[in-house]
């Protein structure tokens, strides 16, 4: 059963086709990889799915609660409310806020108390705030960040910043999670830990995950299916073993290495 259908998604910046005619499908509960050489358009796909960029053409459809909803043209916060959360390639935490606040802000969309309660701190304010705090602490405990709840996000070590960003995305209570290079800059031990964590949250949060990653061993190990982008186009799709032996994929990556050399 599909949960997200992407149909002929296209984005051009001036003359540059960053994403062209990309069609994808995510099934509920899947963990799908999105790979491709540098500049292939992977992050742009995420930006299109989350409404940060508007597509030049094409559609994105979310299937949830037996309904179909078109997502293209919606604002990022609306898309988030519909259940798609993400992390950023170049960590975008609220650096000068505490760990706790980073997570709490992601829960703002569920807050029900209104302006009056806000100004006068009524009963419903304190009840909801307390509930929110409890939920945050539960989440923080999972990633063992609870004892650091009052530290500023910018003071966390790099690996924990990446974790916190995932946690912040989880706090929006998504059904689909988009991870943009979560292992970038991590050492093998940290990467292994992260791999385990991604699997764990998928099970426990009932998530569908789309993962951009350059670390091939990670991708091949945990993804069930993989899409390969090159020059904005999907050049291959299949299981890790299919992708490994796909000629076009090998060419695309070899091309990159030759280019770099």
């Amino acid at each position, binding site marked *: 059963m599909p949960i997200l259908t992407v149909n002929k998604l296209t984005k051009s910046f001036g003359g540059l086709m960053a994403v062209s005619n990309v069609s994808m499908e995510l099934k509920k509960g899947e963990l799908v990889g999105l790979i491709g050489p540098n500049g292939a358009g992977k*992050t742009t796909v995420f*930006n299109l799915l989350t409404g*940060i*960029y508007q597509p030049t053409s094409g559609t994105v459809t979310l299937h949830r609660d037996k309904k179909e909803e078109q997502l293209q043209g919606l604002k990022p916060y609306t898309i988030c409310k519909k259940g798609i959360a993400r992390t*950023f390639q170049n960590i975008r935490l609220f650096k000068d806020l505490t760990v706790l606040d980073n997570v709490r802000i992601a829960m703002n969309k569920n807050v029900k108390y209104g302006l009056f309660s806000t100004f006068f701190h009524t009963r419903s304010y304190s009840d909801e705030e307390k509930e929110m705090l409890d939920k945050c602490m539960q989440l923080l405990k999972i990633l063992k960040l609870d004892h650091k709840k009052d530290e500023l996000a910018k003071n966390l070590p790099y690996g924990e910043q990446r974790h916190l960003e995932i946690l912040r995305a989880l706090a929006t209570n998504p059904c689909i999670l988009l991870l943009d290079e979560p292992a970038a800059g991590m050492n093998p031990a940290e990467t292994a830990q992260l791999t385990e964590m991604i699997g764990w949250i998928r099970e426990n949060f009932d998530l569908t995950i789309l993962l951009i990653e350059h670390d091939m061993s990670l991708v091949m190990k945990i993804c069930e299916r993989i899409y390969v982008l090159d020059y904005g186009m999907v050049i291959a799709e299949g299981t890790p073993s299919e992708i490994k032996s796909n000629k076009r994929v090998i060419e695309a990556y070899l091309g990159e290495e030759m280019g770099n050399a």
Partner: protein
Amino acid sequence: MEQFLQQVINGISLGSIYALIALGYTMVYGIIKLINFAHGDVYMIGAYVGYFCMTSFKLGFFPSLLISMLVCAILGVTIEKIAYKPLRNATRIAVLITAIGVSLFIEYGTMFFVKPDPRSYPPLTGLMTRSFRIGNIVFSAQQILIISITVVLMVLLQFIVKKTRIGKAMRAVSLDRDAAQLMGISVDKTISFTFLIGSALAGAAGILVGIYYNSINPLMGMMPGLKAFVAAVFGGIGIIPGAMIGGYFIGLVEVMVAGYGNSMFRDAVVFAILIIILIVKPSGLLGKETREKV
């Protein structure tokens, strides 16, 4: 029709002054992305330097013009060195606040020394008091002087920016500061030079506005400064021809509103134009939209 043409001439002479000031705003914005709030005050200083040259030192118009451009150029560079340079890597808001601080400092510092009362500008003499008629349209020598000085300065500026080494450096730094640095361009020197040119133009504008309005005061930089800024935004801030077009446009609008509508509303109209432009096309007439890369 004749009245209209007459207004156009008036508008162009006022617009020349706005354009000269707007150039300074736009050049500085182009190179360090700062709305230099103190720029209007540099031009006020220019007016006062001219005033004292012509009254206390009994100098002629042209020597006074040159001296006031020189003094303003030095002032502009000094401001940059003292107030803005230490903040090269600070947030934009921090630099903007600094600029406002410098502006207050100059305005009220000047007021402290020359007293707040307006002074009437020394009248021009000889040939320059004449006026000419073409049909029923009157050109005063004063207007011709304002317009021609502006045109000469603009041509000079275009030459510097397009043809000289330092002009090329200016363009390079405003395109991409880091790349320019890597290419061996001295970014600091280039920025100083930009302030120097922009402030010299403001100095010239200061004298011209003294002649145009016949009266100067320490807070005179604020309103024309803001309007010149509107002109820069209108044309597309950071773009030199944009500032010229914007300057003439705002000058014309102001004169037309005063001539055909109510002179009380000319400031309101200028600010309304600003807000409309910002909402409809924030990058201005000649500007291109840019988008943050995520």
